[in-house]
């Protein structure tokens, strides 16, 4: 199981769109992925340790350096397949690089 942490302002709208899109697309590509959606402000270093990838809505200043890979997932929200595809490809590459494919 590859675990992804999605984040946005309220942890409800945009991050859930990212979560649903990543779980659906990665499942279609044959990967076992679980994505959680949270508020940016609730993220701590301890929380981040439980995930393999961080997919914020945009570049995010957390006050600490993330040890896990980061993919900006904002373009998923444009609702245009051509703009979402590069994000999916980066996420797929991160899964392959992790050895959890």
């Amino acid at each position, binding site marked *: 199981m590859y675990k992804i942490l999605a*984040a*946005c*302002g*309220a*942890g*409800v*709208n*945009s*991050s*859930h*769109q990212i979560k*649903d899109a990543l779980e659906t697309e990665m499942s279609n590509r044959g990967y076992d992925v679980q994505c959680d*959606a949270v*508020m*940016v*402000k*609730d993220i*701590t270093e301890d929380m981040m340790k439980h995930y393999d990838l961080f997919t*914020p*809505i*945009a*570049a*995010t*200043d*957390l*006050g*600490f350096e993330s040890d896990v890979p980061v993919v900006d997932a*904002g373009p998923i*929200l*444009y*609702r*245009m397949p051509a703009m979402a595809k590069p994000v999916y490809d980066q996420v797929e590459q991160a899964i392959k690089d992790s050895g959890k494919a």
Partner: protein
Amino acid sequence: MSGIIDFANAVFKPLIDLGAAPMMLIVLTLIALAFRVKLSKALEGGIKLAIALTAISAVIGLLTSAFQDALNAFVKSTGIQLSVTDLGWAPLATITWGSPYTLFFLLIMVIVNVVMIVMNKTNTLDVDIFDIWHLAFVGLLAMFFGANLLIATILVIFIGILKIINSDLMKPTFNDLLHAPASNPMTTTHMNYMMNPIIMVFDKIFDVIFPWLDKFDFDAADLNKKIGFWGSKFAIGIYLGIFIGLLSHQGVKEIFTLSFTAAFCLELFSLIGSWFIAAVEPLSQGITDFANRKLKGRTMNVGLDWPFIAGRAEIWAAANVLAPIMLLEALVLPGNKILPLGGIIAMGVTPALLVVTRGKIVRMIVIGALELPLFLWAGTLSAPMVTETAKKLGAFPKGLASGTMISHSTMEGPVEKFLAYLVGNASKGQITFVLYAVLALAAYLLIFVWYARQMKKRNKIYADEAAAAAAK
């Protein structure tokens, strides 16, 4: 217009009699199908909306029932009449999406957006379908205070046009704050940025009187890191439980119960809020696909929800500092009836502060503290409408005291709520309100025009800097 309304009533009456949840299941599903969404996806969205409506009413019932006795005792022991329970944004969104008028206002704004694009009055395609509820709320509020559907629709269109223009005006600032290239299409049509003009007035005053305060700006990310989970939703619920429990002289056991009830309700509000997003997702995609087909490849900015800017730590640092300030203001503010709870993390307040001040944290906090009364008064003003609508939807617990009301302490667009109040009352023909409404709308427009000029000056500087950098 009355003919249309009579016809709509004839069509909708049998649906309305089914209750809000089944009615919205049917209405949302049909509208999604009209935008060529697959039947299974359209139906899935409709069912999720019905479930969310049902769930939110259950949680509101739990929260208000648990706090009822304590709040009564709180009023007795302190003399402070804060009779409006602050549920935060998620239940308010649920209640607003429970009205078929919200879908009507959505349709109107899709048409307005497409017309503005075709006429080259904007470069922004608004895909943030879910957050149309902020604008719909203004329309519903105007109708509650006496406006007919036509007047409410005109008000919605007027504010909606300014909202879309504002998204174009803010675009270069977003690129600056996110260090994004000009090719990045990300902007937002969110209602909370309609506070920008008023914040800019404060910001200009700040420029003249207190510019020296900027040197006290601190590392916002560092503050957020130190606060950790103590600023989370459930922690806020715990504080409120303890606060109310102590001031209402509850026992230790009761204080624990209040705290844990508030904490889990705040968590559940967010969780159920996410079901809404899932519910309108098929419709959102259908409308976006429709608009893209009509645009034939024109490059556009894309209007999203506000939180793509949430990665800026100043938003959260300011919200964390403003939370206790708001609580204190709520206790002493004349005319306020809201006890901040669900909306105490002021997400409806701080994003606009960030955009106007461009991250000057001390300015954000000072101006935020000055404008918070507007939010508390607007929340108080909206409480009767929210309460009545919740009762109609069956989202209000039976057996609560008659004076108990629900609302939201930091709901986006406080100024627009006052406009709705004035326009609604003016529609009833009271000459004083007609005068106030005309003056208020003129002032609202004029301050926006002034703000737009300031933003255009700012955007020219951005463009000049980019051109200079490219020439090097």
